[in-house]
């Protein structure tokens, strides 16, 4: 391809579009579904229950420590499927690209998507590309939609959660949110923290033996742990109590959050899961999680109670209980 950057012509549907697809996407993601060149992917699915999930990714910057928008777009949808109890199988990819994006960037993103998908054993089976005029998008936006198969006997839903159940988080909170924040204009600090962006397929596989004991899973992305816990409290109509001292947060993330007036419990994660389990099996689930590279810091952080239904309480260092509220509005750095 001669051009160094995305031109409007790459979205024309003509020869240049074809070249873009062949030389970048098909080259990176090659599989029999893409090769068939049909208007959609024809999939033979095994019998059973199917989970389907969709997510759009509009992150700035598109490359960040620990990942990039491509990797993120694969992990995000895979992790949603894992949270549904599904084994992720197939993903579709739709891209909206801003005119002028360097082709080298697009190649890097496509390669990163291929690598992440291969790691998780999923195939990128159909896609779409649109090009918009400069200023109409911010580099590149990606949507992925995925489907996965739910093995028999798995039913992860908030309604399954019971009083006394334990809550596990699979690692430190806020790493992704903080690493992205450090890249933003107007915030000149450098942090050794990388995004935790990772596909959590291993959690699904390794926890399969505990399917009867796991009630529900959620990935605490936007809005962070606090938001997930509040959603679950409302949906299960139970009270949640978590212990501040047991929630894993790296000292670096805590320090940066203190400086910026932010709270790690409201910061986004892209490689973590919140798992609700039967109390008698929580220790075994935790031990299994510790055998997964991404889950070394997993911890039991609290439990479900009958009251106060629909609310989340947190036990502070002083031993007092207070409300852990849902995020209102945007979580921005503050000074006062």
């Amino acid at each position, binding site marked *: 391809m001669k051009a160094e950057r995305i031109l409007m012509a790459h979205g024309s549907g003509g020869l240049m579009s074809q070249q873009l697809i062949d030389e970048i996407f098909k080259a990176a993601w090659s599989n029999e579904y893409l090769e068939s060149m049909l208007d959609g992917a024809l999939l033979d699915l095994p019998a059973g229950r199917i989970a389907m999930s969709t997510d759009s990714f509009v992150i700035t910057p598109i490359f960040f420590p620990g990942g990039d928008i491509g990797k993120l777009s694969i992990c995000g949808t895979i992790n949603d499927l894992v949270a549904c109890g599904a084994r992720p199988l197939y993903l579709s990819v739709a891209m909206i690209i801003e005119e002028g994006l360097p082709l080298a960037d697009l190649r890097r993103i496509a390669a990163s998507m291929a690598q992440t998908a291969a790691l998780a054993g999923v195939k990128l089976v159909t896609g779409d590309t649109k090009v918009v005029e400069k200023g109409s998008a911010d580099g590149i936006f990606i949507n992925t939609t995925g489907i996965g198969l739910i093995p028999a006997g798995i039913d992860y839903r908030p309604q399954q959660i019971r009083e006394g159940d334990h809550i596990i988080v699979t690692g430190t909170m806020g790493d992704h949110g903080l690493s992205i924040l450090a890249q933003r*204009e*107007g915030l000149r600090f450098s942090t050794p923290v990388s995004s935790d962006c990772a596909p959590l397929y291993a959690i699904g596989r390794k926890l399969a033996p505990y399917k009867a004991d796991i009630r529900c899973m959620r990935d605490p992305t936007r809005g962070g742990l606090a938001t997930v816990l509040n959603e679950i409290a409302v949906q299960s109509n139970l009270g949640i109590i978590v212990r501040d001292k047991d929630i894993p947060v790296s000292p670096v993330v805590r320090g940066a959050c203190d400086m910026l*007036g932010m709270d790690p419990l409201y910061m986004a994660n892209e490689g973590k899961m919140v798992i609700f389990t039967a109390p008698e099996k929580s220790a075994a689930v935790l031990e299994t999680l510790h055998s997964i590279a991404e889950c070394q810091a997993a911890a039991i952080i609290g439990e479900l109670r009958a009251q106060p239904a629909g609310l989340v309480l947190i036990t502070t260092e002083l031993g007092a209980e207070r409300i852990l509220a849902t995020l209102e509005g*945007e979580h921005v750095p*503050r000074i006062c």
Partner: protein
Amino acid sequence: MNLNNDNKYVSSLLQDIQSESRDIALMEVCGTHTMAIAKSGIRNLMPGNLKLLSGPGCPVCVTAQGDIDAVIDLAERPGITLVTFGDMMRVPGNNSSLQEARSRGADVRVAYSPLDALAIARQNRRLEVVFLGIGFETTAPVVAVTVEQARREGLKNFSVFSLHKAVPPALEVIFADPAIKVDGLICPGHVSIVIGLKPYLSLAVKYHQPCVVTGFETRDILEGIVMLLQQIRKGEAQAQIQYKRVVKPEGNRVAQETIKRVFRPVGARWRGLGFIENSGLEFNREYEDWDARRKFDIPEYEDIPIKGCACGQVLRGRITPPACPLFGQPCTPLNPVGPCMVSHEGACAAYYRYRIT
């Protein structure tokens, strides 16, 4: 450099506080204290007879609606880039907020430091960069240094919209009120780094108010409360420092002089408290070129009173937030009516968020 938390000692402080049997009301006049007291759960551990009231301690909350209108007017003018601390984005003026102005196309950016705004101006000479100078004595010298730097560099596309406020004149207004029922003052730790102990000495003497300059860690706040209780038990009214590792009695002289070089005191409007003499800061003549109000000829906007809102009473410590008729319905952090619900650190927001009753 955090305090080591000796659990036994912290429990002994709590026991001391919980053993208090008199009816006592302490006021904190710093939003960071309000938040720390709520977040650490200290408020939930106070005995019923010991009330912690929240005074006018959050510069975002006390910014007048008319002043927000003026800022929005400026932000929406073509070619203007307004840089502000994140806290200001949601604060409503009479009709709108900065986040709404941004959605209408204004170039409004969030920064951590005024130096970030200066850097934007330096790198984009064609932009007119205005920093929204908000905050008390802690932030005023920081902004003053930034303006001095802009002057040294001859940066003409940078200016500051000063909404800075001074704490002591507001405290004077609160304590001069004969109806006020406060037995001691938890004084703001970081404002006091700059102003020192002197302003509290006169409050202690004139209004017989025990004053303790207090830090922000859990142990700091408990120590501050115990020190106040000890004064109250003895019938004393002194100005003391708990936060000794940072606050010196004389304050930070360099910061005080920097404020004086760049700004002079002027009367200012406070949301909920009204007009207070000498409580604002405007630019000295040598720095007028960096005064956004003058540079862009921004008109004065009036404050339209908010019907039913009791923030004025809350800020004076006369009532706690749940006693306001608007609290929780319709006034919530997502749809704030009054100033104390607006800011993350506002008294009403802290009460709402942590469901304190």
